[in-house]
């Protein structure tokens, strides 16, 4: 175990290396590039024993990862924004094929117009696929989550998308504890696929299926999503035992006695933490609920924290046009059966990297009595 100052992207690459994937396929896009540059370097200098396939598009990046996974080895890819959108068809296919591919997405807006800065539109547009989704706040969390992702994916037999915010996490230096390979190996055993493209046991994968079979296959995906809570918790416990760092499906900050709770996912959580500190100093009972796992969505846990609160301000960085912020939809869904629900505010905090200052969040809390719950709230 060593401590080092690394970029968020590099933390991801270190996590991937510790997981010992056999095939990595990737195509460059800002702000994901540092991840794959670092991984290419590791493969070229022998630090990482993997094939690195420099494909000609993201569609091929995810396709090659899928092929490798179906052939029975650990496979990884990373992308962002337009790249993730281009992968869409294959992202679906991987779920149906029940392949534990791990993908890191550096969150970035999608054009038009061109914009390379962060928001969560790219990954939120992929929320209904059957991929597990985790949003990271820090470089340490990114490294640790990548390692956990392989463990969880291979047990649930569903793929996982790990999100890091473009630039504010990918391109920011942070102090990170880098686990040893021995620790990583103890946490993550070698991948043993149940079924794969095996010349000694030839099987066909993906043959046409009629409605009744197809229906049951889809039911199984939902059941696995529901069962994945247990596996994720187990992974978090194991991780804590081996590395001494504790993670959960969600994270909270000053929530117990809070009257106003901010809900957010991703690296802007840090800004909200500082805002909560300020508000507490001013005597305002503010708190924070950070969504780590967005899929499966931990509704029970969220309900247990938010049901008795007065105000819940959801800070979205994406929205479903014509409806609401995707995180708000989940929070409302989780609290639907509560009799005495909090007031839930659907706030679009930032898109395309529009800057967010601590003061913006503080003002929001001070003004909470004047906010409407019946419509999307926008910044000035």
């Amino acid at each position, binding site marked *: 175990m060593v401590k080092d100052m690394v970029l968020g992207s590099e933390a991801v690459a270190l996590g991937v290396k510790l997981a010992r994937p056999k095939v990595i396929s990737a195509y460059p896009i800002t702000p994901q590039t540092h991840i794959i540059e670092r991984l290419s370097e590791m493969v070229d200098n022998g630090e990482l024993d993997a*094939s690195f396939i420099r*494909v*000609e598009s993201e569609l*091929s990046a995810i396709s090659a990862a*899928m092929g490798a996974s179906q052939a029975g080895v650990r496979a990884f890819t990373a992308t962002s924004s337009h790249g993730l959108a281009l992968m869409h068809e294959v992202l679906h296919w991987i779920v149906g094929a029940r392949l534990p591919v791990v993908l890191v997405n550096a969150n970035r807006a999608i054009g038009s117009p061109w914009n390379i800065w962060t928001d969560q539109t790219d990954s939120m547009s992929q929320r209904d696929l059957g991929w597990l989704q985790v949003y990271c706040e820090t470089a340490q969390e990114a490294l640790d989550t990548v390692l956990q992702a392989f463990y969880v994916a291979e047990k649930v037999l569903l793929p996982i998308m790990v999100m890091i915010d473009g630039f504010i996490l990918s391109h920011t230096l942070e102090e990170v504890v880098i686990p040893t390979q021995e620790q990583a190996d103890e946490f993550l055993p070698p991948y043993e696929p149940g079924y794969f493209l095996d010349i000694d046991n030839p099987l*066909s994968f993906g043959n046409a299926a009629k409605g009744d079979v197809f229906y049951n296959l889809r039911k199984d995906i939902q059941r696995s999503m529901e069962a994945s809570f247990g596996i994720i918790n187990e992974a978090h416990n194991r991780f804590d035992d081996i590395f001494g760092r504790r993670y959960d499906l969600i994270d909270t900050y000053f929530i117990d006695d809070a009257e106003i709770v901010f809900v957010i996912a991703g690296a802007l959580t840090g800004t909200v933490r500082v805002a909560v500190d300020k508000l507490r100093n001013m005597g305002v009972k503010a708190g924070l609920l950070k969504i780590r796992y967005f899929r499966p969505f931990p509704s029970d846990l969220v309900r247990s924290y938010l049901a008795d609160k007065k105000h819940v301000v959801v800070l979205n960085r994406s929205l479903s046009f014509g409806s609401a912020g995707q995180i708000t939809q989940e929070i409302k869904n989780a609290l639907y059966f509560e009799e005495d629900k909090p007031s839930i505010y659907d706030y679009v905090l930032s898109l395309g990297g529009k800057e967010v200052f601590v003061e913006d969040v503080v003002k929001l809390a001070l003004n909470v009595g004047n906010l409407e719950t019946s419509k999307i709230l926008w910044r000035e």
Partner: protein
Amino acid sequence: MDFRDVKNIEYMNQGDYACPGCGAGLSMRHALKVLGEKTIIVMPASCWSIIAGVFPTTALQVPLMHVPFATAAAVASGVKNAYKKKGQDDVNVVCWAGDGGTFDIGLQALSGAAERKEDIIYVCYDNEAYMNTGIQRSSATPPGAWTTTTPTGNPLIYEKKDMFNIVASHNPAYVATATIAYPDDFYLKFEKAKNAKGFRFIHILSACPPGWRIDSKDSVKAMRLAVESGMFVLMEKEQGKPIRITYKPERFIPVREYLLLQGRYRHLDKNTINEIQIRVNERLKDLDLS
């Protein structure tokens, strides 16, 4: 290899979903006899997505992976790299794609894999249209041919895309054309492909009775006349060597005999047939065949 040696070896099960007389089913059956049991098939959307059977049945005795339409060559790259990393480099990873999945939507992935010298075999069974979706035009559809999206004939300003040379320009280990109407030639080419290392591509002409508007009993005859008329030339190119014509008829028959066997060309007038003949003659001249 002599195909009499493998006449009793089958890697395709009985009861597949191909139409009677389907060239695609026949071609797979014979290709697998050469490729053998250490073969993995990667199959994009096509008629073969159905021919392979409906769950829980399967037409193949070798591992098979169905994949989205545009992805075959990229998926196969992933499979092959995985196998290399497992220390089992002797497995044939084979894409089995239609003309739509090769000439059109899968071309980018194919070019990428060829350029990266991926150690895979890419087979295109070319029935000259999108057959699975009901006979729509692809860029492999010959000028003049009727399809449901070219109801008055594929405009003559078009030319069938030259896949052989497109792939050859990537300098692959092996590139060939073949058709199961010439089984000895077909077997030799699959054997060469199997024994070469690097990117290998075989373009096979594959008759489709419903799409070509022919009687199923005429399927092999149609593929044969395509070669005898010079519409489809049997050739190959090994890396570092010039293009080699692998079969030359004593005398080419007029394309009319090939065209008029098929309902998809029945609407053609004399002038159009002449125009097609002129183009075929020019191509044969380019190949030093006339």
